[in-house]
């Protein structure tokens, strides 16, 4: 793998095998013959597999540590409260898989009868094992997750992604391109440092034509349990997510305040909703989950109308 030249244009580009940087590369002849440009057969296989999955939601953020995994897990918990819906949660963060911990799973894949989880964390011999992989190997893993996992009849597939706009994101969008993703939920904190990265993520979604369900502002204010004063720990110095959403014409799904119980429950692997059903954070989560469901249902009925007309 290290033999590939640094300025490699990519196996599927027009310059494959023909560029100046391709001289001396062991794969030059293969690329020049156009073998790299043929579409990956896995995409068709994944499309077949995904036929039994009704709705697919990606949880993205340009920034790390804003609460993507926490949100994905609670979205899954919230949707799974309806026993008649089948939920699947897929964690494609290969380097830092948090979902097994947050869902309280040690090697098992089912939290409740109607909520299934898949993550690279289940495949490691120890939770402390580091997965130090370069991009292509990660892509292979993601392909296996999508193609070789028996998802069965699923109403909602929630995909938790790592931070950034890298291999994992490109791969999941490419592999699911023909299988139709309902949309992406973007998570941010009110800080400008975070919003900067989320703006990039919004542009990424637009570039790859991924519909955006909306933005969730996490860690939005903290209420002191003693005196009830609200403090802005991550201050929205540039207007927070609300202004960004107005500027970029993206819906703001809601704001979730900081609650120490969220972190505690994630560490214990329990649902925050059962521990603190009356917390303002719970109410915020529930309203956001409802809006996501409405978006998905609307999209589905629009498509059915198109097919029937």
């Amino acid at each position: 793998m290290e033999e590939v030249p640094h300025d490699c244009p990519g196996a599927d580009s027009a310059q494959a095998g023909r560029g100046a940087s391709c001289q001396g590369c062991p794969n030059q002849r293969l690329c020049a013959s156009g073998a790299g440009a043929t579409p990956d057969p896995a995409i068709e296989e994944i499309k077949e597999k995904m036929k039994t999955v009704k709705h697919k939601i990606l949880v993205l953020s340009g920034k790390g540590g804003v609460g993507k995994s926490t949100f994905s897990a609670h979205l899954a918990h919230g949707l799974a409260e309806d026993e008649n819906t089948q939920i699947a949660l897929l964690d494609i963060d290969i380097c830092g898989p948090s979902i097994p911990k947050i869902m309280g799973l040690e090697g098992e894949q089912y939290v409740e009868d109607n909520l299934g989880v898949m993550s690279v964390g289940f495949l490691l011999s120890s939770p402390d094992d580091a997965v130090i992989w370069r991009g292509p190997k990660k892509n292979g893993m993601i392909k296996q997750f999508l193609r070789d996992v028996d998802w069965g009849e699923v109403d909602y597939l929630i995909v938790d992604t790592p931070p950034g706009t890298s291999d994992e994101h490109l791969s999941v969008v490419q592999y699911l391109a023909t299988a139709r993703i309902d949309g992406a939920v973007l998570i941010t904190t009110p800080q400008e440092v975070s919003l900067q990265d989320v703006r990039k993520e919004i542009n990424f979604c637009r570039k790859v034509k991924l519909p955006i369900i909306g933005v969730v502002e996490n860690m939005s204010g903290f209420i002191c349990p003693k005196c009830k004063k609200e403090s802005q720990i991550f201050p929205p110095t540039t207007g927070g997510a609300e202004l960004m959403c107005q500027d970029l014409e993206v819906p703001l799904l809601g704001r979730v305040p900081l609650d120490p119980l969220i972190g505690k429950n994630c560490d214990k692997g329990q649902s925050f909703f059962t521990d603190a059903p009356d917390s303002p954070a719970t109410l915020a989560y529930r309203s956001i989950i409802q809006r996501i469901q409405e978006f998905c249902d609307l999209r589905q009925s629009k498509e059915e109308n198109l097919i029937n007309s």
Partner: protein
Amino acid sequence: MGIWRRLLLFGGVSLRAGGGATAPLGGSRAMVCRRQLSGAESETLKQRRTQIMSRGLPKQKPIEGVKQVLVVASGKGGVGKSTTAVNLALALAANDSSKAVGLLDVDVYGPSIPKMMNLKGNPELSQSNLMKPLLNYGIACMSMGFLVEENEPVVWRGLMVMSAIEKLLRQVDWGQLDYLVVDMPPGTGDVQLSVSQNIPITGAVIVSTPQDVALMDAHKGAEMFRKVHVPVLGLVQNMSVFQCPKCKHKTHIFGADGARKLAQTLGLEVLGQSLLEDCCGSGKKIAITFRMIPQVSWKFAWY
């Protein structure tokens, strides 16, 4: 693995010495051993194999003019790596004004250093065609954020990122630096590997918040550095506790004391802790508010 696996196998090494032969057969490679190898021959084969496999790894070459490289990393995102890196650089400079300090941001996808150091603009080129780092608060800074538009995403696969990292490491006119603080992105992937394999690193500081979920990833980060033989200097626990400005009540929003337990498990020190305060993100100089810094910079001054 699709395309990449096929390419790897077609373009793979063929071992002709020692009696084995490889024949690519429509996507898979078959090893055909013609005869049993004797002890001496299998030893030669092993050596040759190691030689060929290590040939592909880049040689570690120090950056010209830079004496020591300190890396601030964490497996987890959003724990305060950039914040810690900025403060570390500022503290190193404040500790000893005769030392020249540089700050390199290798987070290609989400570069936060330009915002935190209040810097904007494209770097100029020096006479030898190297990029000149931008200066603020006495620190020379370089980041991907100076090379791309603010809202433009960098949607690159690993290989192109490697190439960009190479440029950020080698094609910057750092001058003579005593310390170069490198702010890593989250994860344990391409960027971390590229940096560790390309330049000798004095030491790594792992940042985490007290939450288990963050500590798990910080543990992975520390493991990764062990595997690539980079010494880990210690842990920094960020966002330890929040004190209400009105009633002074302390709340441990992200849990308490987790880093100490992890440090014990790994045989490392907790270099310091920091509090959650209304700071960072507005480009103001903030080293003064972080109580941990004198401890940390003393540690590095020792090197």
